[in-house]
């Protein structure tokens, strides 16, 4: 049972609304937004760059960044700090505790 599983439907709905509502003004590129929503809304791990950011692993984030993605690093971190549940990101163990697809973790 992950932390995500422990959310009530009400809490989950509120979280999704907050995440989706905050994304347009976040400065996060469009192609990264879907992965973030799926991670927080459904616990599904995103691509490896976002995984590295969620795990707070700078070395891996640099390694796995697509061209232009590193410029999104600051808006991503600000977004996570302001909008995401702190228990859902920040280290590999916290990501593993949140995700419903731990087998997809590449970091």
């Amino acid at each position, binding site marked *: 049972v992950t932390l995500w599983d422990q959310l009530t439907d009400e809490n989950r709905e509120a979280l999704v609304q907050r995440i989706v509502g905050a994304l347009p003004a976040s400065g996060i590129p469009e192609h990264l937004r879907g992965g973030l929503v799926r991670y927080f809304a459904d616990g599904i791990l995103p691509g490896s760059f976002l995984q590295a950011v969620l795990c707070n692993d*700078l*070395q891996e984030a640099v*390694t796995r960044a697509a*061209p232009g993605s*590193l410029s999104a*690093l*600051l808006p991503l*971190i600000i977004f996570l700090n302001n909008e995401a549940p702190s228990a859902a990101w920040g280290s590999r163990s916290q990501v593993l505790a949140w995700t419903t697809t731990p087998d997809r973790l590449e970091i």
Partner: protein
Amino acid sequence: MNRMELFARALAAYPFRDPEPDEDAGAYIRAVLAHVRDRDLSMAEEIRLGKVQAEWTPEEARHFQEHCTDGWTGPREEFDDYVFVGTRDPGPYQPTAAVLLELASAQLEDYMAMRCQGDVPFISLLALLDTGELLLSGVDRDHRLAALKYIARTERLFGFSLVAEYFIHGVNPEGKAEKRDAVVANIGTRDLRIFRMRPFHYVAGAVVFDEAPPDVDMRGEAAAVDAYASVFVSVPPPSGPPS
């Protein structure tokens, strides 16, 4: 703020290229650090330590103070593929230290006034020639020394003043590292070398200048770390009246 966030803030403040296809992450991070270090010494140290300056221990602050310029090569001394463009004011201005200092004061005040309106994206260069002319230009940080050396080689340079915005790094009496914003004038002739600082802070986003500290004489021991000590090196002094 952790290392990733500090790194992200540095990339946002001083944009840098993407990693090369065959560049490993460690090499890229080191390249970013070198890029940031050239623009903000303490920001680079914050990334290296993984914590903001306010959280450094006295030992870390002392280490930074003692080693922050280790390995720093300074601005480039020669142009590569760069064209120096300047405006020539025929003057005439007396090529004396007093006149240079007066011109430099006016240049500094102009720059401070511009800074109150917003970022100034260039370094203001003023060169007083033995002919009484003034050369005025805006240069970038990488070419500020190369421009001065170019003028010293190709003109009869009496003295110079470079005005720019810098971070001034220091350690306070409590052992905490501090960084101050300042507009700085570097003024020099063959016999004179002055560092003039006008620190400022922000109030509700507006620039407010603080009390001006005394000028610093950069000759003597300070010359060892002075990038501008070499401006007149290898340039013979004028041997007669200007033609």
